């Protein structure tokens, strides 16, 4: 943002003030995250920078917490659980949410508003209430303390994101394309996979990503429903901080930051590709 040559002194001052405020916001949001990364290489079992670290002495740095992480069965089990539950519930939420969004966008759909509100409700109802309700219900049907139970619960939490993103993509979807495909001889299944799905993929992918992240850092529902076997990452981190203060948690956090960055980059690349495919930005 360049300052135009006709800017008054007041405007110049405001401009730099504005930049400063932006910088501070970034600092407070991202600073804590950035501090974690060097700290995770600490060779001492503390959450502060040691003298060696500050003078960039190699002795101050080590990979011991990463080593700790990769050799601890508790952590490995937690991360495995997180991925199993995250991937399974993302898959279910994506399929169900996409189908629901398609159905809700059909002009033959009765009671659209009510059904939509119902499906979106897990996003709106306070989590603790959903979690408690699920706990009582799942206990009755023997799903509490099982993988299936946690996966189903996270599916319900992820579906609203998928519905919202896919519905948004569908609102710009030209339904005559479906008719065109039919008139060219494609049956409904082929039409769906060759015409509808490729064009709503951006919505489906971002919905899936939201669903995955929701499941991945969800604590409350897991606390209620999961047994010791289904301990996920966030639970492990939480108890890690409460019970045995160890910088292993910093190594885990760094890895998670890396993972999120990877996911976001993938998403952005996918989005650009699909935009190119849709001819929004002809090269």
């Amino acid at each position, binding site marked *: 943002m360049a300052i135009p040559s006709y800017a008054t002194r007041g405007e110049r001052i405001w401009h730099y003030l504005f930049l400063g405020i932006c910088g501070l916001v970034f600092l407070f949001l991202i600073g804590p995250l950035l501090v974690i990364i060097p700290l995770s290489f600490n060779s001492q079992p503390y959450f502060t920078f040691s003298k060696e670290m500050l003078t960039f002495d190699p002795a101050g740095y080590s990979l011991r917490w990463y080593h700790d992480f990769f050799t601890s069965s508790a952590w490995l089990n937690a991360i495995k659980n997180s991925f199993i539950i995250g991937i399974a519930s993302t898959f279910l939420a994506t399929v169900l949410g996409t189908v629901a969004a398609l159905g809700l966008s059909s002009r033959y759909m009765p009671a659209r508003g009510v059904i939509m509100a119902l499906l979106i409700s897990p996003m709106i109802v306070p989590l603790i209430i959903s979690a408690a309700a699920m706990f009582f219900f799942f206990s009755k049907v023997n799903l509490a303390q099982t993988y299936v139970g946690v996966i189903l619960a996270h599916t319900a939490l992820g579906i609203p994101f998928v519905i919202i993103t896919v519905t948004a993509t569908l609102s710009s979807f*030209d339904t*005559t*394309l479906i*008719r*065109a*495909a*039919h*008139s*060219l*001889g*494609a*049956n*409904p299944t*082929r*039409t769906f996979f*060759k*015409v509808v799905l*490729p*064009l709503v993929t951006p919505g489906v992918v971002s919905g899936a990503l939201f669903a995955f992240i929701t499941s991945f850092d969800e604590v409350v529902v897991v606390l209620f429903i999961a047994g010791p076997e289904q301990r996920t990452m966030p639970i492990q981190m939480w108890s890690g901080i409460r019970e045995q203060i160890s910088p292993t948690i910093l190594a885990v956090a760094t890895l998670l930051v890396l993972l999120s960055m990877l996911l976001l980059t993938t998403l952005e690349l996918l989005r650009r590709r*699909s935009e190119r*495919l*849709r*001819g*929004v930005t*002809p090269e």
Partner: protein
Amino acid sequence: MLTLAQRDFYRGMCMNETLADAGEARAATSETPLSFARFVNVQKSYDGVELVVKDFNLDIRKGEFVTLLGPSGSGKTTCLMMMAGFETPTHGEILLKDEPISGLPPHKRGIGMVFQNYALFPHMTVAENLAFPLEVRHLSKAEIKEKVAKALAMVRLEEFGDRRPAQLSGGQQQRVALARALVFEPELVLMDEPLGALDKNLREEMQYEIKRIHARLGVTMIYVTHDQTEALTMSDRIAVFNDGIVQQLASPDELYERPENAFVAYFIGENNRLQGEVTERIGDNCKVRLDSGDTVVAKAVAVSGAGTRTTLSLRPERVSILRGDAAEQFENQFTATVQEVIYLGDHLRTRVSVCGNDDFILKTPNAQGYGGMRPGQQIQVGWSSADCRALDA
């Protein structure tokens, strides 16, 4: 027309007969050819209350170019969608090659369709768009390649196979849509205002192009438009649509020369209208006393007898300006007052007041002797009873 049962019976007979008899039977069928596509008493209502299409009957012969012409909202698209299978008739039957098709889903009807907004698949290249209907039909790779190349050549877009629709101009997209509707060689192609989004020059070029392709491939086409010029230049027959029913089904010249009711006369081409009441019928003609008091002799088209209200329709170019020499004689001659003269190069449009109508238009060729009319001037105009059609009020 034969019912289905009758026709099957008829076919069975043919098979059992001797060759000579079969030949005779064939001769008989060629006199009354089975229609290709047919709407029989079709009605359609979206809300269960109001009929958008009231009683639609249309019999289309093989290879014909039939246009549904009508104002916006008259139900043209609805009829086309029922033929394509995207809407179901509330009542009545649609037949394709004399088979009812209500039980067939759209993708099994094998009808090509060009949509107003083209509906090209944005995520596929032009060539992929054209290959789509062929892949659905499980053609071999080589065949697909050949047919796609042929189709691209037909619409003169050979070099554009690798582009995406968004990288083409409107006219080019239109051609791709046309090629895609034809590439799988359907016997029937439906077009819903396919040229509506193009500018005038491009539209005329595409009209010619579509006609050329129609003549070359011999496919049957049902074309929808609200543009009467387009309908007149392209069609073998035109069904003029209004109020959910066909007002008249006829060839373009027939529609223009002999409109059967006031709506058709008003909708096709320009016409002067005079309101009055029939006083007397004389054979094919009738005498009409206009509301202004003048009496006009007109051709009785849609009037019963004395006492009925009628609208007289008269094409501007069929009204002559009489000069003093009285060489021409018409049954109807009146004195008119010139209101306005508009110069249009090859012809002049003159607005006059005559018989109580202040918007009476004359169209005269810009030939010698016609110039020099001034507003306010009194002139003599005349027309023959054959050109003046007495229609419904």
